[in-house]
């Protein structure tokens, strides 16, 4: 067992699950989308991205690309959230919540691709 692979798989999976946890629920209901979950998703996604740095294989490059997409989507979601809560006079309305959640939904798709890659990589790994 390779500890590096364990940590890598752990963070990739955790990024996807946290993202999913935030995404699930009515899209315009702020009550079912916890901001702490979004924060955790951003942090874990960033860590997962950094873990993917410096892999020169083809699959490693695609891994990094999916992570970067997820980061982009999640950071966009947090920016929308920050705008709604801090700048906008109307606060976290249903439409703002819908924007945040749909952006995180995009990140979820990227994270799912990441998971598929992880599974493909594992399955295609042959023991000598």
């Amino acid at each position, binding site marked *: 067992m390779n500890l590096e692979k364990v940590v890598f798989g752990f963070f990739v999976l955790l990024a996807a699950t946290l993202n999913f946890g935030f995404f699930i629920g009515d899209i315009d209901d702020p009550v079912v989308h916890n901001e702490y979950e979004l924060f955790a998703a951003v942090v874990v996604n960033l860590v997962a991205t950094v873990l993917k740095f410096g892999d*020169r294989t083809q699959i490693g490059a695609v891994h990094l690309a999916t992570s970067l997409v997820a980061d982009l989507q999640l950071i966009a979601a947090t920016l929308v959230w920050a705008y709604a809560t801090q700048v906008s006079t109307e606060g976290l309305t249903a439409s703002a919540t819908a924007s945040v959640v749909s952006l995180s939904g995009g990140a979820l798709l990227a994270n799912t691709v990441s998971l598929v890659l992880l599974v493909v990589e594992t399955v295609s790994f042959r023991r000598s």
Partner: protein
Amino acid sequence: MSRGLRASLRHLTGRDQQPEFRMRRRSPLVTGVQASATIFVILRRMRAPLIILILIFAVSVLGLTLIPGQDANGQPWHMGFFDAFYFMSYTATTIGFGELPYPFTGAQRLWVMGTIYLTVVGWAYAISALLSLLQDRAFRQALALQHFTRKVGRLREPFLLIAGYGQTGEQLGKSFDTLGRRFTVLDIADARIDALEMNTHRADVPGLVGDARDPHNLEIAGLGHPWCEGVLALTDDDEANLAVTMAAALRRPELPVVTRSLSPVVAGRMQTFGDPTVINPFDRFGDHLRLALRSPDVHQLMTWLENGPGAERPARASAPAPGRWIVCGYGRFGRHFTADLRSEGLEVTSVEQHASNPDDDPPSIIGDATDPDVMERADLRTAVGFVAGTENDTTNMSLVAEARRINPGLFVAARQNQPRSAPLFAAMEVDALLVPTDVVAHDAYAQLSTPLLWRFLRELPGRDDEWAAGVVARLTRACGRRLEELWKVRLTLEEAPALVPWLDVGALRLGDLLRSPADRDAPLPLVPLLVLRGDECVLTPGGDFLLAAGDQLLLAGRPAVRRQLETTLVVDALPEYLVTGRRVPSGWVWRRLTGRHPAAPPGLPARSVGRSSGDTRQ
């Protein structure tokens, strides 16, 4: 795999195509993976610091949002993620705007105190990791490699690959740079590549530190590059030179390869791969000295032309009367040289300290040449020539001094081994000095600068002294004491469009071409060294030589004169003036007004080259 297939396909098809077309095709040089290696090194090394930084930030922000605080009215208040991240950003970067938006409670301050130390340590770790990465040797090499690869890949003009940038390489590089030729350098020593960067070349010279024996390094240095036009293997290691020769012959069989070796065995091994030119400095020096003994003027001309642009006219060696020669040092050089002299029918006395092998060709005298008794036995007084050819510069110099003391009239040749001895040997003013690195540099220059010069030099040894003295005198009149650049003119439609109608009817003589476009009675101060037509060449053709289309001329003269001649080649009104003395306007308007047109030979329309009439009519 597909790249290899493509490369071999290109190789196969390329043989049937025009060489120029093949030259201009781009081929994938170095893989993208390799070019972006640097960024991967950075990313990989920065993993740990970045993750630690992210975690420290995450924990600090999360803590701030969880710890209860108070607003301005003393009401319980929880900091949001936005404020917490804002606070951590300015605190972690040591900017410190203070406690915003409300003054902190004790619990918050306790937490912030911890996070301040954590974040500062995290930042310091990340930044120091980045800085140490920048100073890392492996990283810098990766960076240099990427830089070099990019520079070589961008070359869009013919260049030479020089493997081994020692004395010889440096000297050659300077000559080629003066000619405006590009080259890339591969050398195993850092110091020499640093020296390359310190040198002031006109063009940018990419240099890589690497082992020339590694084909990968050669590939990066441009061996597979479509614009690579030649390979020079000039390292001081025979095996490395052999490896470069092999790699070049296998990878690019069509490229000319010039290399050096002192050993005939290695030279033979090199010859089995393709057809490289192997320069043996001892051999070449022997040839030179024999030529100098036989015909000193031809030798002077040859040396001058070989030394390259900017070289001062070498002194004419005064050949000694035939007689006995003494060769001190009977090693590889001594044996070679003795054989050369004997083949000229000269008597040779060789002196060597140790008889290495009694079977093969022992020296005439065994003993230390610096010993006066040994010198006495060699009998310097009755000799005409003396060669100090040991592998030790100090010994060679003392031998020369001793020989001159005994017999001041001797012709003295010496071998210089170390470059740092050069000023001392120069001060001794020996009649012939062997500097192996110079010999190789001059020979390689003569072979690669232009094929016409090499052709000229090969024709030289058969010529007589009188002719050579004449050429040297003409060169001195045209160039002065320092040789100007030699250049080539091809009388083709591309290079000399104005001349083609005249050449096609056979109406242009060399003497007419070399008249001044300003005043046809004044000849241009140029020396036509050689005309090459097909496979035949004429050395120093006379003024009545009839030129034909496709001829190649090798000319020597000052750059200003070269520009005048180039005007003649492209302005279509000039050849008529030079041949007949009739001035023809070169502009359309003036031709209309004066009614004079260039006399176009039958069947060929007059070619018009857009030039204002002013610059040709003065």
